[in-house]
């Protein structure tokens, strides 16, 4: 056998070994999260606020409410900005300013989450002198906007130009074409992009540390400190009490469920409701 062939065989073994090792590590992780999470789950966990420190029992209802509220408000703030910025870039694709906007969106996507958190603190919390869920939502919106803008732009550029030209030939104006032709035919892509961005911000912790701050009570008022699942996981995991640590695993499991629901479940529901393929 020539050296080439030996090398070929050796490398295929190495490549396969790397793949197997990584897949094994990833599977072990999933296994840990799944089983450690499920073991301590019960109905109270979903419906009750946390028990007194160090005691077992209680749940994360406050954190579930917080995650849902904070994520929804953040996406409500971020969606118009992100979508319109994406539309702008897609419509003025060749212009210098549009590519500057695109570069800024890319750069913003790379801003570490803790920087967003500390920005939220100095910009909102310090100014209004109170921790609040709303400031957390605004901080998260800053993560939501660039991803939404990029997804919207990418999906809009996939719309066939023949479709748009046909609409222009019928005398439609640009806003009409964008709104009634491009957006509609890109609806599925934009929806799934929005849901992916939502799933991403739902799992963010660092921007919440100094903005939402956390709360042990079920809180519905966006102007007050609020708990959230990622925050609860961080606090519980750092606790010395085993009961708290177990709760962290279960909360992690619930958080993953919410994220998967957003990414795959909602996509299915929306595709049924809107009759678009998402």
């Amino acid at each position, binding site marked *: 056998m020539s050296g080439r062939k030996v090398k070929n065989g050796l490398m295929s073994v190495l490549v396969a070994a790397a*793949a197997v090792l990584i897949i094994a590590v990833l599977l072990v992780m999933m296994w840990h999260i799944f089983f450690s999470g499920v073991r301590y789950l019960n109905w109270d966990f979903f419906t009750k606020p946390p028990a007194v420190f160090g005691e077992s029992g209680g749940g994360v209802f406050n954190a579930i409410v917080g995650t849902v509220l904070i994520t929804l408000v953040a996406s409500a703030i971020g969606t118009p900005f992100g979508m319109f910025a994406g539309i702008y870039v897609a419509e003025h694709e060749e212009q210098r300013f549009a590519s500057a906007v695109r570069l800024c969106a890319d750069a913003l996507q790379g801003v570490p989450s803790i920087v967003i958190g500390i920005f939220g603190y100095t910009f909102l919390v310090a100014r209004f002198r109170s921790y609040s869920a709303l400031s957390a939502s605004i901080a998260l919106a800053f993560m939501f906007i660039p991803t939404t803008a990029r997804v919207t732009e990418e999906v809009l550029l996939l719309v066939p130009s023949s479709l748009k030209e046909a609409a222009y030939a019928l005398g439609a104006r640009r806003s009409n074409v964008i709104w009634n032709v491009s957006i509609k035919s890109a609806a599925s892509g934009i929806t799934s992009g929005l849901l992916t961005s939502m799933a991403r911000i739902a799992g963010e912790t660092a921007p919440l540390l100094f903005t939402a701050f956390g709360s042990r009570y079920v809180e519905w008022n966006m102007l007050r400190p609020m708990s959230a699942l990622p925050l609860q996981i961080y606090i519980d*995991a750092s606790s010395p009490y085993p009961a708290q640590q177990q709760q962290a695993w279960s909360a992690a499991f619930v958080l993953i469920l919410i994220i998967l629901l957003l990414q795959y479940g909602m996509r299915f529901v929306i595709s049924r409701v809107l009759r678009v393929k998402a």
Partner: protein
Amino acid sequence: MVARQSRSDRRELVRERVFDAVSLTAAVALVATIVLFFLQLFIASRDSRAAFGLPFLWRSEWNPVTEQFGALPMIVGTLITGFGALLVSTPFALGVAIFLADYASKRVAGPVKSLIGLLGGLPSVIFGLWGLFVLVPLVSRFEVWFGHLVGSEALVTAGTTGVGLLSAILLLAIMILPFSASLILESLIVVPAELREGALALGATKWDTIQNIELPYVRRSTVGALVLALGRALGETMAVTMVIGNGIRMPHSLFDPSNTLASAIANQFLEATSPLYISSLIELGLVLFVLAILINVAARMILRRGVET
């Protein structure tokens, strides 16, 4: 004769203007965000900038009690964990990407890709949770074993915790792997089939083809992907915060507890009481922000040029 504008025409024109104005505003807001971030962090860190000036970046003392702050230990911690994680994960990321692109059948590749996608979307705090309760005890056991091996009593006693640079590097390596592997895979699957087939027809083995045709073809986008992954690793917060041990001294070994720029903020910000302490932590954030922007812009430049040529 000029046709008179009907009312609906005018209304349409107004709508057109409004639409343009709104989309331009959103675009400008996006650019303004970056400026706003910089200014806000710059202003909020004025106390620390006034007290320490530029030497803040290379002073190695970080002492909340005497109020002497220098960012060097955190900058060193950030660079060691970031580059360490990149070094550990890159061979595996390349291996997985090549495996999925060239070796795996569709039946295998599909599920593996969705597993990698799933892990890429997991929140950082969950990686931190796993790292703290699974990875750190393993590292601790390794540290004790290693301490006995080299006969270092200090390592054996320190090894009971397991938190430190090594744990952070390993956890980060696992975290950035799905990201870099899927980016590399994306560029590998667009290598033109003619090139690959041409090489195979000339009698090249599969690995010859990969080494001489595919990898050179994706070189630029792979470098871009790795720079992006590095950017992620440098700014990663929660997972690192949970396993790095919040050490404030310069690390001397891979087992030492340390801090990155991000983890120092996450660990200490809520405990910081004096204005100078708070402002120094915000300046760490400013340094991290500038670093992240530079790395991301560099990566995009590399990737964009890769598309043109």
